[in-house]
């Protein structure tokens, strides 16, 4: 090949590369514009006051600059986003996007600013995790991660949360949840917490019937109800026999 031809080919390739990248980015940008921009703004700058947007949504939402791939991955894979009404609490829903679409969207959101990447947790010690979970999480999420309430919001159960989503949520603090820095919960401790939450999905129920893992109160109540019913039945039987 002559040097001139080589140079031209190289130049052509250099020109084509950004074009291909743009085409790939273009898909994410298009998805973003259609599904996210009404509330988060076309460039991720956020929408402070209700503004009419796509699909008849009165858009309003926080800026996405600097939230990074971590938050985008969490909110999209849990089905928390897109949200039909900005005033609703995001909750675990059917994910509307395909895997490729999620990747494109995550890339698009990450491009708004220097944000943290998607974490890769490695489950650690279950017993250390239980102690940490009791300290930091059980107040809202309940000792066996069954969820509950805080005034003004539902606290989701963690039964369907993947390792990655747990690791993401601890750092992000979705909706009303506080976020925990690497000082409050170290990466190693986070791995332990992930291990414990995994354990709560299939706990070792030595007593047999778990009664929803809700703790001693319902267990006692069920015992009393069953025992009381049996006692009443026996008493009724005895009374009938004596009268006869």
């Amino acid at each position, binding site marked *: 090949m002559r040097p001139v031809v080589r140079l031209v080919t190289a130049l052509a390739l250099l020109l084509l590369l950004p074009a291909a990248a743009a085409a790939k980015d273009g898909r994410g940008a298009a998805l973003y514009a259609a599904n996210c921009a009404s509330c988060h703004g076309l460039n991720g700058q956020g929408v402070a006051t209700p503004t009419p947007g796509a699909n008849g949504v009165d858009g309003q939402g926080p800026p996405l600059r600097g939230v990074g791939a971590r938050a985008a991955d969490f909110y999209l894979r849990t089905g928390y986003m897109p949200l039909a009404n900005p005033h609703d609490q995001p909750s675990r829903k059917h994910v509307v996007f395909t895997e490729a679409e999620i990747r494109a969207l995550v890339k698009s959101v990450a491009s708004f600013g220097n944000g943290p990447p998607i974490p890769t947790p490695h489950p650690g010690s279950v017993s250390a995790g239980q102690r940490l979970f009791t300290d930091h999480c059980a107040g809202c999420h309940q000792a066996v991660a069954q969820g509950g309430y805080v*005034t003004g919001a539902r606290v989701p159960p963690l039964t369907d949360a993947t390792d990655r989503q747990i690791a993401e949520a601890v750092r992000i603090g979705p909706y009303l949840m506080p976020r925990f820095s690497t000082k409050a919960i170290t990466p190693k401790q986070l791995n332990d917490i992930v291990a414990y939450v995994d354990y709560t999905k299939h706990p070792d129920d030595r007593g047999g019937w778990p009664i929803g893992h809700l703790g001693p109160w319902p267990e006692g109540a069920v015992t009393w109800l069953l025992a009381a019913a049996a006692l009443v039945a026996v008493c009724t039987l005895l009374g009938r026999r004596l009268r006869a």
Partner: protein
Amino acid sequence: MTRLKDWVTAGLVLVVGRGGAPKPKQEAPRIVAAGTPDRHAENVVILLFLLATIAGAAFIVVYALDRLSHQTQWLGLAIGAAFALLALASTVIAHRLVVTEEITEDYPEESPAAQDEIEQIVEESGSRFTRKRLVTVAGVGALGTIGAALLAPAASLGPILHTGELYRTPWRRGRRLVDEGGRALTADEIEEGTFYTAYPEGADRELIAAPIVVVRLPLAEIRERKEWAPRGIVAYSKICTHAGCAVALYRKPTFAAVEPRPALVCPCHYSTFDPAAGGAVLFGPAGRPLPQLPLSVDRTGHLRAAGTFSGPVGPSWWGVRMGKARS
């Protein structure tokens, strides 16, 4: 050796009861009528006892093996079955093997004369008393005092007279805030959107007024006691003013425009306190605000208490509003 043999023989004789004719029992007149023997019921009872024995033994075996799956369930089943079979055997014995008879006795007719007589006997039995009223008063006094003595330990349920202790706190001006590990907290490391538990440096952490919860809010959002919140960092007692649980929940909005505002929440009964407004009650059964601890930042950037709490720490009691928290 022969001695051992003798002992064994003696034991066998004793157990089996052979080797000598039983003493003839003295024939006394029967009280209970003789029943007809029921060999069938007897067999059933023996069988039930045998099964109960097996179930009891099964419990011991399952317990000893200690590595069956569902061990708890097997243990419960074994001991439950043993008791059920025992109960069944007892029922059969009572119904089929014990001789029963039904006797009815007429209720005695009322007799006013006899009643009057008893009253008279009671009345006249007291003829040795000369100061009846005094004895009665003394008796009532003794019984009443014993009753009071039985109730007295209830005073240990809480201070009644020396409530002064309830106002004392280990916090005083200049005391540094330390974390669970005893490390002093700096203002810079306190971030928004999360919460921290802190203790007074060098004081007993078991004291009810020791633990505090620290959060950081945007300075502009703080509506009350701005001078207590350097750089927007506020501290409150971690003990709920309702029933004394640890205020372990902190909710913070991700997007303040459409979500509930930041609040400290007690997980026991959902008392909700506003960290931006001096710990005012937003919701729930708590009757008074969460006591706030004034903060200051020293030259090295460490957080220090700038005084003591805005009110008494801990669950409320009858006189909680009559005093102030003191160091």
